[in-house]
């Protein structure tokens, strides 16, 4: 049992912090939100520095450093509320291709995604993602050796800009899960006005989209396990990004409490403020420790991985709820303004809370797994 970050991992974390600290100031995120800009960074660096290849086997051009290393990098992306394709492509699209794809599909999709030459997205049903299930909104039926997709998917992160979209659809056979990869353009993608514009969501409409066999991942009707395992990766990554965002917002809030003076003293000298800050610290520590447990469970393929993933998301949920609330409250009127960066962090955290199952949904899943 060792929760200590290794020296190599610490070095990685520090290099990621240095790069993101330089290339991803909040002004960059604000520019996306206010002007719809599409900055090249920090994605370009992520690609060049090999962050996209961290959890990909060497055989497919990856670095094979494991999910623990990737989780730590994701946490830092959350800390800097980094925009760009990293989260969707590396922690959502890639795991599904890895879990379900054939060698040829890994070569076609995973290797270029690991190199950052191709970006991916994942279209699943967020409403029942915690249960690893799919609703009826998108169905796939056989058409000879090909499959036809009909229906829609909501809240697909990067769904209108990723090169390839991995799609989970209901099928009428076996375990009911079919997995497919469709290129951008095959579905009608409509960008929605997203709470966090630096995490842009799209609504996808698939009207009789035909998928040829080479784009079918695994065997439709025998893909529930692969979907579940990929969802665990995406869920833990979202939880860890959320932890990073909460850490950042907590630090900003504590710093503000030290600077802001009222009644001739910093407001941070008041016990009412101090206790809110202490409670934020406890929640961030709890969410991080739980996220690290889940991250290791995935890295080691431990039997507790499903439970761990749901615990990580539930803990991150508790954490963001408190840190967002007190983050705004302690900033007072400034925290309520558009100009303050507080809103950027709050919107990122709230977005991550909703994706891949809310805390409430994951607690329900935990209760099921524990057979309460």
């Amino acid at each position: 049992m060792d929760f200590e970050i290794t020296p190599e991992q610490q070095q990685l974390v520090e290099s990621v912090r240095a790069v993101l600290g330089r290339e991803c100031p909040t002004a960059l995120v604000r520019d996306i939100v206010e002007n719809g800009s599409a900055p090249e960074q920090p994605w370009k660096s992520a690609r060049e520095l090999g962050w996209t290849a961290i959890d990909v086997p060497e055989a497919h051009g990856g670095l094979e450093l494991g999910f623990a290393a990737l989780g730590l990098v994701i946490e830092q992306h959350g800390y800097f509320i980094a925009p760009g394709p990293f989260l969707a492509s590396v922690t959502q699209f890639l795991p599904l291709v890895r879990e379900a794809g054939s060698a040829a599909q890994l070569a076609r999709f995973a290797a270029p995604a690991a190199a950052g030459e191709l970006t991916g997205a994942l279209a699943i049903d967020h409403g029942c993602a915690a249960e690893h299930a799919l609703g009826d909104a998108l169905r796939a039926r056989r058409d000879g050796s090909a499959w036809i997709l009909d229906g829609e998917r909501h809240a697909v992160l990067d769904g209108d800009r990723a090169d390839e979209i991995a799609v989970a659809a209901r099928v009428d056979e076996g375990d009911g899960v079919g997995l497919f990869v469709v290129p951008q353009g095959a579905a009608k993608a409509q960008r929605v006005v997203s709470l966090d514009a630096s995490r842009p969501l799209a609504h996808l409409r698939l009207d009789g989209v035909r998928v040829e066999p080479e784009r079918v991942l695994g065997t439709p009707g025998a893909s529930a396990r692969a979907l579940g395992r990929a969802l665990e990766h995406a869920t833990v990554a979202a939880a860890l990004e959320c932890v990073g965002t909460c850490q950042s917002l907590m630090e900003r809030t504590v710093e503000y409490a030290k600077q802001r003076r009222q009644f001739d003293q910093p407001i941070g000298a008041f016990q009412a403020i101090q206790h809110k800050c202490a409670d934020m610290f406890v929640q961030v520590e709890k969410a991080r420790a739980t996220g690290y447990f889940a991250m290791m469970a995935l890295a080691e393929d431990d039997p507790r991985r499903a439970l761990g993933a749901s615990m990580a998301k539930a803990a991150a949920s508790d954490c963001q709820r408190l840190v967002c609330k007190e983050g705004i409250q302690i900033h007072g009127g400034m925290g309520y303004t558009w100009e303050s960066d507080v809103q950027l962090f709050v919107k990122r955290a709230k977005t991550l809370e909703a994706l891949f199952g809310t805390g409430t949904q994951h607690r329900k899943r935990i209760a099921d797994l524990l057979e309460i």
Partner: protein
Amino acid sequence: MQLHYDAETEKFRAELREWLAENQPTVAEMRAEPTTSSAHLTSWARRWQRRLFDAGLLVPGWPPELGGRNLPPVQQLVYHEEMARIPVMRTNNPQGLGIIAPSIHDYGSDFLKQKYLVPTLRAEIAWCLGMSEPGAGSDLAGLSTRAEVHDDHFVVSGQKIWTSGAHHADHCFCFVRTDPDAPKHRGISVVIIDMKAPGIRVRPLPDLLDRDHVDFNEVFFDGVVVPRDHLVGPLNQGWSISAGSLAHERGMMWLSSAAQLDGNLERMFRLARERGPDGKRIGEDAVFRDALASLYVDAQAIWFMGYRGFAKFAKGNISPEHSVLKLFGSEVAQRAARVASEAQGVDALEVDFHGWGHDASSDELPWSLRYLQTYGATISAGASEIQRNIIAQRVLGLPRR
């Protein structure tokens, strides 16, 4: 980073489990002679602790002559994990073993070590800890029990309160004011007081659970003479001993709290299968399910946070993780017992229970009493408010007033 222990550590765990299965006291033994306070060394409790001492399994990080086997930190962690999971405490005088013995070891003179250390470890003598006073609770450094300093003795007068097991203890490890003129942290010393000395009166202070359940006491000192050689550490340096002592206690204390909470969650999983006031299975209720899942996450998180802080704990330092674990652990435990008690409705109001003691009978403690009991942990050893102050000021660097 890894979730698993290495093979050598797991081998130690297996051996320890085997040893415990053969050597731990039986439930029948414990029920025949219940322990009623945290300094009540019954005959089975003395035998048990002595067996641990002789086997080098009492303080495993210490050398064999002090009841250990020089175990490396990771194996100490495994030791405490296993000890927390058996239905008997490793000692029936936790303050004696957990706080006072290490303090004598670290700060005591050769004379005091000779006289008290091994007998304490072998459960030949029991201790109480004289810290809190009516006027010095959270503000411990404000204590006012006086020890007049004479050439070869002290004369102690004053009052302690919340003194666990004082009615059973042989000695008191007592924090006293030896310099009333110095700033409050710099005028405190530690002396060892014989509880049979003339001038000591002990008044039991039953807790809110049961009039017959006495662990706390008030202890009154009226001109009690203490030999000069019973001073622990240098004169007026007692405050640093208090910090050091509590570090020993807290370094591993989270493990037993975490294991206790796990035990309560196990009981809640059983409760979920029972019928609630509406005749339905309690576990079918969506609100209860959500609450229990949330508690499960928090209870697991305590272990994960403890493991994260472990490297620091192993060095014996007081670290912020202690405050986080103490604060969070005690509040989660309180929430657990409240949720369980509320789920029982009026059934929780039946509290016919007489099985006090540190034995397996605690399974029968009603949830409503268990809930009230949890306030012990949010108040004692630094109330939750004090822990929040520590986190805010020492970890987050917010200004002290």
